[in-house]
């Protein structure tokens, strides 16, 4: 089957066309933080600049959260997740706090690599998500992001650009479809 398909492609493909070079596009705006915040607002992302520390942010934003997973913040974490943690534990997570590697100003997308998310499903299955991002890790656009990300390094990587959402019923926007109901980004 494989050879049959490849053979037909070889017969039918047009003459080789060159691969274009992607130019360095200038940032849409110079002030990346302001741009990021503005786009984030449009995607229902809460953006906070850490002044009082992540503990305060959690206490203020998610006072109800009990099952908290925060591998980088032992003082916050109430549940430790391992590769063996059963589904029952995963599905009861109220809040997940992770450190993002990169943020992209043009679309408020944040890059999470597999090592930092512990389990691939965590950023989706958690009820709420906090991502912590150092401001110096903010990039202007997706070209810059893909230039820095090495996809082959890990088994899985993810851009998150907001809480899970849908508009499948009459184009009416609903936040909190199948994944996290809210996303807070803490810029440090």
């Amino acid at each position, binding site marked *: 089957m494989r050879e049959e398909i490849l053979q037909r492609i070889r017969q039918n493909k047009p003459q080789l066309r060159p691969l274009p070079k992607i130019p360095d596009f200038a940032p849409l705006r110079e002030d990346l933080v302001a741009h990021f915040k503005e786009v984030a607002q449009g995607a229902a992302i809460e953006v906070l600049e850490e002044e009082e520390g992540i503990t305060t942010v959690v206490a203020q934003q998610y006072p109800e959260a009990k099952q908290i997973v925060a591998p980088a913040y032992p003082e916050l974490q109430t549940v430790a997740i391992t590769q063996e943690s059963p589904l029952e534990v995963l599905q009861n997570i109220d809040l997940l706090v992770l450190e993002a590697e990169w943020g992209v100003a043009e679309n408020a997308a944040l890059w999470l690599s597999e090592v930092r998310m512990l389990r691939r*499903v965590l950023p989706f299955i958690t009820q709420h998500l906090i991502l912590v991002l150092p401001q110096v890790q903010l990039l202007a656009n997706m070209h810059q992001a893909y230039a820095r990300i090495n996809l082959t390094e890990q088994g899985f990587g993810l851009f998150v650009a907001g809480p899970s959402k849908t508009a499948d*019923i009459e184009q009416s926007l609903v936040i909190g479809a199948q994944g996290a109901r809210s996303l807070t980004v803490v810029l440090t």
Partner: protein
Amino acid sequence: MSEHAKKAANFIADEPRTDWHDESLWFVRTKRDRAAASVPEWEQLRQLASDIKDNVLSNLDSYLEQFEAQARANGVQVHWAKDAHAHNEIVYTILERHQAQRMVKSKSMLTEECHLNPYLEERGITVIDTDLGERIIQLLEEPPSHIVMPAIHLKREEVGELFEEKLATEKGNNDPQYLTEAARQHLRSEFMQADAALTGVNFAIAETGGVVVCTNEGNADMGVHLAPVQIHSMGIEKIIPRAEHLGVFTRLLGRSATGQPITIFTAHHQRPRPGTEMHIILVDNGRSEHLGKKDFRNSLKCIRCGACMNTCPIYRRSGGHSYDNTVPGPIGSILSPNTDLEAHSDLPFASTLCGSCSDVCPVKIDIHEQLYKWRQKIVEVQGLPAAKQRALKMTGKILAKPKVYQNAGFLARNFLKVAPRFMVYNGLNEWGKSRELPEVPKQSFRKWYRRNRRS
């Protein structure tokens, strides 16, 4: 009347609903305009995307081989399917081997094209579509009417009634927030129970052997990261050469589709998670044949954003189901004749050739040009209905001979008696039912010219 015309007339019979449908989609188009306008290099990105895809199509065999080798090295099992049946069989074989009973599936136009759900259901597998819109139409037992917004044709009241019956929601509660929450609870329990998960693929990277899947709801990831078996089905044209090209495509896709700067989740699957299996099925199903058609191969560039549907003045007023094809709208009308020209020969005619689709397309597919060329092809292969063709052939003869044309025109100062054969060939009624005919002037331009200018 063509099948599309009949279905469209049916849809339009409810004019307020047609207006609602038109406005809903136009709203998405305007969101797309705003999002595109925020990127000064938008047109340059479209050109880049188009050029990258040109390169892909011209080197598809090597990229596929490269992709396969990389994916295998990543521990992924790669399968090749020459057609829909082979694809479905591969999926079934994988499921059977794992004794899987329930499979969750995120949106995949390819599996719609292959009619995977009925194939698996006949073999005792329960398939749960997990995109909210897809779940709605699955419960309604309808096909999607749009590739990005599958349930765009439904009103909240209809979804409310459906959920009341299927998910035991409160009677009369049609609040989208409430209904979405009900679906969330229902689907979360499905994710937990699933034995396997299948997704479509937005981009497959030859260089890395990985696949990229974009969703807003996060349903594709909820599925594949929980189930012990992860399957990605992709058309062979989804290949892109390198990871850097994702920069171009992710900037275009979300903005073109819904006016978002990017889809909420852009997931990059490289290797299976420990202790589980990851499969990628490369599906041809007519694509390698399609690649050989010079005038039509460009449509293989499509990244399934749906922008041509949202902008199409016909689609907006006839609904996706009027196209009777997995992919409706302008792009569907140029893709479908590749697989079954006979069955879809009405679709290339379901257009005014206004060209909005080609201008909105993020990969610059010459959609309206292809519609025009398909028309030529269709007449060449199967002809038009005899009467129509006779009338048009006669018209052609008249128009190629000025004397005959002038006589026809002049003798018939009562031009309207000629015009129908001449221009509208199958009678005045289809025009005249809903529109007035032009008033017949005292004299033609030609006559005026002879009297007033010709010495």
